[in-house]
C-alpha cells in the first residue's frame, strides 16, 4: 500500500482567549481556552487532494497553519513524509499575500532564491518566465507590480510563486474564495492541470461544497474543531453519514435543482469558547438523543470504517 505523504494524528491546538490578567484579577474571571482544533486525524496519499470543509471558525485555517508550521500543535502529531522544503502554501487573499512594492518577477523568484541560492540571475529570469507561462501569464508580466493585475491574475502569481520552489505538497487555504466564479473556474482548472502534470498533493480548504466536490479525492467535514465525517468524495455525496453533513448538503443552493420553498435548518454554530457538552452538534441535531449530550462520539473502526463520529450513525439511523 502507498504510504501517505502526510499523517495527522490526534492533532490539537488551543488558544488562550482570556481577558487581560488585570481584568481577570478585578472581575474574578477564569482563564479561558479555545480549542480551535481538537483530536483531528487524517492521512493524505501522494498525488491526491484532501479537502477540509466546514463553516467559518471550525478550524480549517488553523489546521493549514499547523501543517505548514506557522502554528505549533498543542498536542498530537503531524508527520510529513516528504522533503519539508517542498511544501508551499497558497492563501485566500491574492491582494494581501503579494508584496505590493515588489515586481512580479522578484515575487515569483523569491522561493528560488531562498531554496536554491546558487541560481544565477539569468537562470532565475528564465525560470520565472516559464512559471508565468505555466499559470497562463506572460514572461513580460515579470516587470509589472501586483496592483496592475486582477484578482484572478494575482492568484495565478501566487500559484507561480508557490511552484517556483518545485513543491510536491501544496496547502491551499480558500484559494478561490475571493474570486468571481468565472475566474474561479480558470484557477481551479489550472490547479487540476498542474496536479496532473506534476503529481502534486493538495490539502485544499474551502467552505464551498461544489468546489470541493470538483477538486477533492477525499473530503473531511469539520464542525467546531473536529472532523465529524471523512469519506471519498463520491461516497460523501452519495451517502452522507453525519447529520451535519446532510444539513450542509441540504442547505447549499443547488442550481440544477433549486429548492425554492425550503425550510432552512435552524440555529447557528455555537461559540467555540464554550462548546456544548458531548457531541457539540447536539443542540442543532434532529437525531440527537440523551447519550449525545453526555458523551463525545468518536470515529471508530466498527462504525462505517472510521468515516463518521455520530452515535445515531453507529446505530444505522440516518433519518428522523
Amino acid at each position, binding site marked *: 500500500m502507498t504510504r501517505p505523504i502526510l499523517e495527522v494524528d490526534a492533532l490539537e491546538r488551543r488558544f488562550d482567549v482570556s481577558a487581560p490578567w488585570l481584568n481577570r484579577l478585578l472581575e474574578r474571571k477564569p482563564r479561558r481556552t479555545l480549542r480551535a482544533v481538537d483530536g483531528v486525524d487524517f492521512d493524505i496519499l501522494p498525488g491526491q487532494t484532501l479537502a477540509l470543509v466546514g*463553516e*467559518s471558525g471550525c478550524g480549517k485555517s488553523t489546521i493549514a497553519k499547523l501543517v505548514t508550521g506557522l502554528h505549533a500543535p498543542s498536542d498530537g502529531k503531524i508527520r510529513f513524509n516528504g522533503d519539508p522544503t517542498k511544501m508551499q502554501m497558497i492563501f485566500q487573499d491574492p491582494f494581501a499575500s503579494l508584496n505590493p512594492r515588489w515586481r512580479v518577477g522578484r515575487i515569483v523568484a523569491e522561493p528560488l532564491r531562498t531554496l536554491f541560492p546558487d541560481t544565477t540571475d539569468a537562470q532565475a529570469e528564465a525560470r520565472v518566465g516559464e512559471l508565468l507561462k505555466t499559470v497562463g501569464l506572460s514572461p513580460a508580466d515579470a516587470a509589472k507590480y501586483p496592483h496592475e493585475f*486582477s*484578482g*484572478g*491574475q494575482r492568484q495565478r502569481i501566487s500559484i507561480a510563486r508557490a511552484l517556483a520552489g518545485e513543491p510536491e505538497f501544496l496547502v491551499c487555504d480558500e484559494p478561490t474564495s475571493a474570486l*468571481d*466564479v*468565472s*475566474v*474561479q*473556474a*480558470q484557477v*481551479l*482548472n489550472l490547479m*487540476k492541470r498542474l496536479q496532473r502534470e506534476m503529481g502534486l498533493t493538495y490539502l485544499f480548504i474551502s*467552505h464551498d*461544497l*461544489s*468546489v470541493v*466536490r*470538483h477538486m477533492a479525492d477525499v473530503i473531511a467535514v469539520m464542525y467546531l474543531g473536529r472532523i465529524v465525517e471523512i469519506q471519498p468524495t463520491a461516497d460523501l*455525496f452519495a451517502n452522507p453519514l453525519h447529520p451535519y453533513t446532510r*444539513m*450542509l448538503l441540504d*442547505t*447549499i*443552493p*443547488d*442550481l*440544477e*435543482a*433549486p*429548492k*425554492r420553498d*425550503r*425550510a*432552512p*435548518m*435552524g*440555529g*447557528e*454554530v455555537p461559540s467555540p469558547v464554550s462548546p456544548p457538552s458531548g457531541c457539540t452538534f447536539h443542540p442543532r441535531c434532529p437525531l440527537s438523543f440523551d447519550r449525545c449530550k453526555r458523551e463525545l462520539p468518536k470515529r471508530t473502526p466498527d462504525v462505517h470504517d472510521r468515516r463518521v463520529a455520530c452515535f445515531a450513525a453507529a446505530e444505522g439511523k440516518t433519518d428522523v
Partner: protein
Amino acid sequence: MTQPVLDVQGLRVEFPTRHGTLTAVDDISLTIGRGEILGVVGESGAGKSMTGMAILGLLEPPGRIAAGKILLSGDRIDTLTEQQLQAVRGRRIGAIFQDPLTSLNPLFKVGDQLVETIRLHTPMTRAQARRRAIELMQEVGIPAVEERIDNYPHQFSGGMRQRIVIALALCAEPELIIADEPTTALDVSIQAQITALLKRLCRERGTAVMLVTHDMGVIAETADRVAVMYAGRLAELGTVEDVVRRPQHPYTVGLMGSIPSLRRDESELQMIPGAMPRLNSIPSGCAFNPRCAQAGPKCSRDIPRIHGEGAACWLALEGATA
C-alpha cells in the same frame, strides 16, 4: 398593467475623473413589481452596487446619475433634493448591505436604534415604538427578544446582526428593499435562513426586493426574475427559469458553465477566456465581444441593448452577428 414599484429607465451613472469620464452603469432599464424579488448578478465591478446606490440616492460624488429616470410607485425620485431623498430612504426604500455593521451604530443598543428609526418615520410614542421593535425582532427570528433588545450590536453573531438590519429596513414598511450582497459574509446555513426570511417578508407584505448578489445559487432559489450585468450594462433579463436553465446571452451561458456542479462529475470546468474589461477600456460595440466565441463583425461596431426582458446580444436580437 399594474404600476411597478420600481421602474428604472435608461439609468446611466458616471464618474468624472482626471483621465476622462467613466461609465459605471450604462443604460440600465428594469422594473420590480409588488412582492417580486429581482436578482441582480454579475462579477465584481459589473455595476450592481452602483445601480443600487443610484436608486437609493447614495452615490458618492463625483459619481452622478448622468441619464435616465427612476420611478418609485410612479413618483420620480432621481430628481429629488437630498432632504427629500432622506425622507424617501428608510420610509419608502429600505437598504440592507453586505456588512451589517455599516447599518448599525456600535455605541447604541439595538432596541434603541430600532425605536429611533421607527419614530423617525411614524408618529408612534416611545412605548409604542418599543413594542413594535420587539415585534419586528421576533418577526426576523431573534430568539429571546426581551432579553436581547438591550444588547449592543457586537453582542450578536453575524447572522443575528443581519437579521437586525433587516428589522431596521422594515421599520417603516417600505415599498422597496435594496439588499446588496446581504448573505455574502455569512455561512451557508445562516445564508439560507436570511434568504428564506427575505422571501417570506416579501411575500407577506408585498414588498418589492432588489437582491444584488454574485451567487447564482442564491438567485436560483430566491429570485423571481434575474438581471445579469456585465461591464456596467445589462447582458440579460428574464425569469429565473429562463436565465438559469435557458440562458441566451453567451456571457450568461459561460457564467453558468463555470459554476462547479453539485451533481455531475466534470473533468474540467467551462471557462470564459480573459476577464471583464475595466471601465477605462470598455471595448466598442458589445462589451463582451473580445471574449465571445460567437462574435461577428457587427459585435465590435454596435452596442446591443435591451429595455425589457431578453438578451443584449446581436444573435438573440437579430439572429445574426454580421
